[in-house]
């Protein structure tokens, strides 16, 4: 069986077992993604890990995506891998509320997700329910805003060329002592 066939077979097993939780399945360049309803994400992950046929025991990571100005805005993509069967699959969960986004934590199923979810909390502002340690991880603890959102500015400063050298110099906060 080729890798792609294995992935579609795995997706079918999940879809058959939990039809209420899966919205749709799509594939792109050989990668199979299941779009999961966010309320059922923990259930789907638990099934993927514990099912005897699937055995998706390696949690590779969870990435957050911000589709601003589309709605639903935030999506979390979970990358799972099975060591025994050498199959990888992606689960995508669109977070429902755009203004106060929140989703359940999968840390009880996959402890590896702990820091990844903290990063999403920090960078996107998606509240992770039942997370054992919901603190900011990459930015300082008193940082305001969520940097990877599309409406957060990059924060660059004007590049200092020779024609605007003095103007930029006036505003640069040099340390005096």
């Amino acid at each position, binding site marked *: 069986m080729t890798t792609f066939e294995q992935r579609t077979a795995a997706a079918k097993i999940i879809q058959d077992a939990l039809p209420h939780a899966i919205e749709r399945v799509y594939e792109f360049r050989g*990668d199979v993604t299941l779009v999961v309803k966010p309320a059922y994400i923990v259930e789907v992950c638990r099934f993927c890990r514990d099912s005897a046929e699937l055995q998706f025991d390696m949690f*590779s990571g969870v990435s957050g995506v911000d589709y601003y100005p589309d709605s639903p805005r935030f999506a979390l*993509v979970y990358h799972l891998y099975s*060591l025994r069967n050498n199959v990888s699959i992606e689960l995508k969960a669109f977070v429902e509320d755009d203004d106060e986004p929140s989703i359940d934590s999968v840390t009880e199923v996959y*402890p590896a997700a702990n820091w990844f979810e903290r990063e999403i909390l920090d960078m996107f502002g998606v509240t992770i329910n039942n997370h054992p340690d919901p603190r900011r991880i990459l930015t300082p*603890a008193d940082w305001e805003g969520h940097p*990877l959102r599309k409406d957060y500015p*990059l924060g660059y400063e004007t590049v200092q060329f020779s024609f605007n050298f003095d103007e930029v110099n006036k505003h640069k906060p040099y340390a005096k002592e």
Partner: protein
Amino acid sequence: MTRLDESQWEGDLETLRGLVSERAFTGETMVLNMGPQHPSTHGVLRVILELEGEQIVNCIPDVGYLHTGIEKTMESKKYEQALVLTDRKDYLNNLGNNLTYCLAIEKLCDLDVPPRAQYMRVILAELSRIQSHLVWLGTHALDLGAMSVMLYCFRERERILDMFEMLSGQRMMTSYIRPGGLWRDIVPEFEPALRDFLNYFPAKVDDYERILTENPLWIDRTQGIGFISAEDAIRYGCSGPVLRGSGVNWDIRKAIPYSSYDHFEFDVPLGQHGDVYDRYMVRIQEMRQSVRIIQQAIDNLPGGPFRSQNRKYVPPPRSELGHSMEAVIHHFKLWTEGFRPPKGEVYVRTESPRGELGCYLVSDGGPKPWRVHFRTPSFVHLSAMPVMTRGYLIADVVGIIGSIDITLGDCDR
């Protein structure tokens, strides 16, 4: 002298409530800060240790001191401009990062890579692995007291950096691997220098083993320390030498071969005990296997183009611009706007010297990436560090951090 106001990292014990045990608040255990500036933390890592005497009750790593916003900066640059930033992410494995990002772009655009470029990419990725393991060995041994090993390792590393400089003009931040292949063809001086290195290097690995492997001081400081079981390693998402040191046979170069790794014969070293010593042995053996792969690759290096000929994504050579109008138009389009991959998302995994390096790339059809997320091994291994550290002595923390082989640029991006 200026007095600092209450910056967050100077906070009191209340901020750690829930992370350290209750005994810290009564004073039964001591909370010690192994600060961001420390000779043995391999970069700016802060570790908060809860100690009972010398024994570690809990260990909380605090990262983010090198957060560079690389992912957000990449969203504002064209795909090929953003490639330059990937070098700086894991700065001990520059070509490996380039490779992962380029593989993601090629998967997204369905771009072919000629076999010559694929074999060269394998050679460069393995040289990068050897170079990273040399820095690991030098710093790890230096932390545990074997200072001369560091000087030996950096001497070997200079030869590899000379080879990178021959190819791309830069020692470290080469940006040599581009979408579609390589930046330019290999120069004639490269092959003799590489063969010379392959003849000279295995004897040096034997030298390092002679100093360390059966040294009773080294064995005392590394055997039985920093144990992680295979089940725990899988649960916490570990990969690379950390996972293989515990006996789980998973190497992405064998399991999900990329860039024609399946054409080469090599072994995957495994440990048994999951401690610091086994991870050390795994990496030493990996260096030898890398030499084997490079030897096979350079002996069978195919001829042909070094970059894809698909002009929608790859710029034409300068010689063509003189007589072909299409070449000029492609060149203009690529330089002003950049190429536009189709809309979609991909996830690509490669085996970096630290573990599984993944790149999740989302494209909206425009010339700039919509979202690039790097799943970095150091980030995951640091989250598994408390499991490896509990119950050991404070002098072992240094050895454990060294054996996980973290790079803070990789962790914080």
